[in-house]
């Protein structure tokens, strides 16, 4: 007879789990003990939040379910930000927590917390296992729920006595959940309506969100876009679903989107939303969003339809299948040339360039000074990344510069906390991605604030020989918040300047990393190359001025075409 913990580990093996990111403790002793006897790789992180983010990064890079493991009480609560992060971005992870013995539950026992209660609003589902014999069913269901339909985090809370009990447990061969049957195939009548609208539209626009990536529908997206010559914008979560080098690809829209993408959105007459949820970061003021457009919303989650925005044709199901259905229904019908003709595009491009020139993230034309602008870093990095390079980011201005400017070419190569905007995500997510894809280059783009939140996980990189390439934008500021204070608090800056910062070069060295810094534009390409060429962990610290803000920016209550490019009353090169 096997113990509950052994049954759990066997079930994980059956789900093809190859790695678990975890942190031990008293209530999880049995589980770790069982894990140690298994082939599953067990990576010890430095903080449980890192375990959840690593599982998230693993899932996003590989397309498989990521798994993490923590003890009860503080171990479980430390996971919570990671649960919410995965939930907001619909990332399939399974989190396993130890729990005090069933007889102690409810007594405020040492390290007892109601983690199923705490995680309930931020997880797709959760289980408190009360009977060891139920473990095979629960684990099978948990993985199925995490990855099917709209993916998301599922938590399994396993009390110590349930993990220790020995029973004869039967395998669970199939999942039977009468309350959970995700829609897969698109409704025929609605497909017909979509095709009709596609035929009638003069200025259609596709918007690809994270759902395109989780459905693996990038080929179908490309096929539809090319066949009808429809330009494509992306949400932050959708970046990589179409190559940024494709002529129809316009990049990220939204309140920190590219001017071109936003202007096209506001001018289209048909907006086809694919696997996205009309987050306020995407739409700006929903009442002013795409005012001339009919909206088709295709998503696997019925509850997203009509939640934030009126929709003309809803279509619920698996994106890959639905896009195939649409393409089939078009019966080979083609359009020659996009409505965004070379001229209009060139005009938009010109406008965007003019605006970009006015934004402080780029060096002014003709400037030959040594100062490094954020735009310089992104351009230099674009010269070095390959289609297979994976980039993770933290949260802040550096994240948006990366999202706006990186020439991403493949899905699952841009890994960033979109919905929750969790600082401290970049490094652990990159750990997960690197574990999933050992042969590929994984770059982390971070800021001095976020880096200090993710820093503990450098210890994991050190111990596990994970060769992350960390690019640290050091503006000595919580830049994004400073920017908000520029705009919303009349440039009164509070709690955004780090009075003193540690020497990041020493920190890099302390963790055995190649330690680089760049202060002069001329040395930037070489330093970046050195970083990417280095076989091990490396950190390149780039000093940039805190004056550079992220633009365009759409302020609260404004539409996507009402972008601002500077702080009111400031000179065009930034703040005071």
């Amino acid at each position, binding site marked *: 007879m096997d113990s509950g913990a052994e049954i759990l580990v066997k079930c994980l093996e059956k789900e093809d789990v190859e790695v678990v990111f975890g942190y031990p403790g008293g209530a999880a002793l049995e589980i770790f003990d069982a894990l140690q006897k298994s082939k599953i790789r067990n990576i010890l992180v430095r903080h449980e939040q890192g375990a959840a983010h690593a599982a998230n990064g693993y899932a996003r890079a590989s397309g498989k379910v990521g798994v993490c493991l923590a003890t009860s009480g503080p171990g479980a609560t430390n996971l919570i930000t990671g649960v919410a992060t995965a939930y907001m971005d619909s990332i399939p992870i399974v989190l396993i927590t130890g729990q005090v013995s069933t007889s102690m539950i409810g007594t405020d026992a040492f390290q007892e917390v109601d983690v199923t*209660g705490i995680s309930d*609003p931020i997880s797709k589902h959760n289980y408190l296992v009360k009977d060891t014999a139920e473990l095979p069913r629960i684990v099978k269901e948990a993985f199925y*729920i995490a990855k099917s339909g709209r993916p998301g985090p599922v938590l399994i809370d396993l009390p110590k006595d349930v993990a220790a009990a020995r029973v004869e447990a039967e395998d669970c061969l199939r999942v039977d*959940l009468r*309350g959970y049957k995700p829609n897969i195939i698109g409704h025929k009548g609605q497909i017909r309506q979509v095709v009709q609208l596609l035929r009638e539209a003069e200025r259609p626009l596709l918007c690809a969100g994270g759902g395109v990536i989780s459905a693996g529908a990038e080929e179908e997206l490309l096929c539809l876009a090319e066949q009808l010559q429809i330009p494509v914008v992306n949400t932050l979560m959708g970046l990589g679903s179409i190559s940024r080098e494709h002529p129809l690809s316009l990049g990220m829209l939204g309140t920190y989107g590219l001017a071109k993408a936003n202007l096209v959105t506001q001018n289209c007459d048909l907006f086809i939303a694919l696997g996205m949820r009309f987050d306020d970061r995407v739409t700006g003021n929903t009442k002013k969003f795409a005012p001339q457009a009919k909206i088709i919303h295709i998503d696997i*989650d*019925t509850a997203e339809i009509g939640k934030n925005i009126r929709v003309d044709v809803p279509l619920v199901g698996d994106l890959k299948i639905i896009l195939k259905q649409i393409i089939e229904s078009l019966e080979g019908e083609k359009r020659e040339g996009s409505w965004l003709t070379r001229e209009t595009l060139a005009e938009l491009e010109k406008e965007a360039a003019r605006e970009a020139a006015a934004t402080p993230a780029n060096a002014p034309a003709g400037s030959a000074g040594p100062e490094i602008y954020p735009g310089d870093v992104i351009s230099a990095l674009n010269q070095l990344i390959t289609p297979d390079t994976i980039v993770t980011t933290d949260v802040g201005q550096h994240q948006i510069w990366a999202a706006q400017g990186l020439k991403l070419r493949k899905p699952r190569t841009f890994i960033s906390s979109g919905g929750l905007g969790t600082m401290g995500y970049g490094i652990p997510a990159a750990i997960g991605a690197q574990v999933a894809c050992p042969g590929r280059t994984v770059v982390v783009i971070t800021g001095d604030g976020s880096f200090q939140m993710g820093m503990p996980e450098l210890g994991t990189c050190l111990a596990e020989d994970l060769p992350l390439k960390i690019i640290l934008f050091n503006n000595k500021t919580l830049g994004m918040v400073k920017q908000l204070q520029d705009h919303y608090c009349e440039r009164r800056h509070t709690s955004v300047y780090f009075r003193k910062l540690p020497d990041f070069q020493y920190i890099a060295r302390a963790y055995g990393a190649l330690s680089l810094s760049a202060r002069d534009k001329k040395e930037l390409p070489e330093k970046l190359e050195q970083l990417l060429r280095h076989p091990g962990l490396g950190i390149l610290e780039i000093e940039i001025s805190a004056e550079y803000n992220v633009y365009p920016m759409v302020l609260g209550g404004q539409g996507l075409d009402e972008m601002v490019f500077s702080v009111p009353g400031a000179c065009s090169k930034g703040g005071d």
Partner: protein
Amino acid sequence: MRHTLAVLVENRPGVLSHVAGLFARRGYNIESLVVGETEDKTVSRITLVVEGDERVIEQVSKQLNKQIEVIKVNDITNEQTVDRQMLLVKVTADQAARQEILQLMEIFRCRVVDIGRRSLIIEATGDEGKIEAVIQSLRPFGIKELVRTGKVSMVRGSK
């Protein structure tokens, strides 16, 4: 508008708290909620009365449906239904008033389920209108304590 939702859920611990939590965090208002087993022991039925316009109710139903343990959500607001609530009320009843109260309760077909020295406990079942009428008629005598359940509903006919 008030909507009545009949929600079939797995009969398992924690399900009710999932459903109630959903209402709280999405800012929906529950007017009443009744839960109990059904003819199938593995299934419970939650009868919910919710206030909201079409859009809100649509969101409520979709969010409910999204819960893994929710098997089916039916909006039975516009169906022909039999509705029942139950009321227990302790009313002040000295010797003088007692007869009058008993007569009244006869008319409403309520039952007296406890007789104290100075009070009676009365049990009533019926639709909302009747329950309200019973309460109104007893109010002048002095209501000491009152409890009532939410509504349970069943669609008429063979549906």
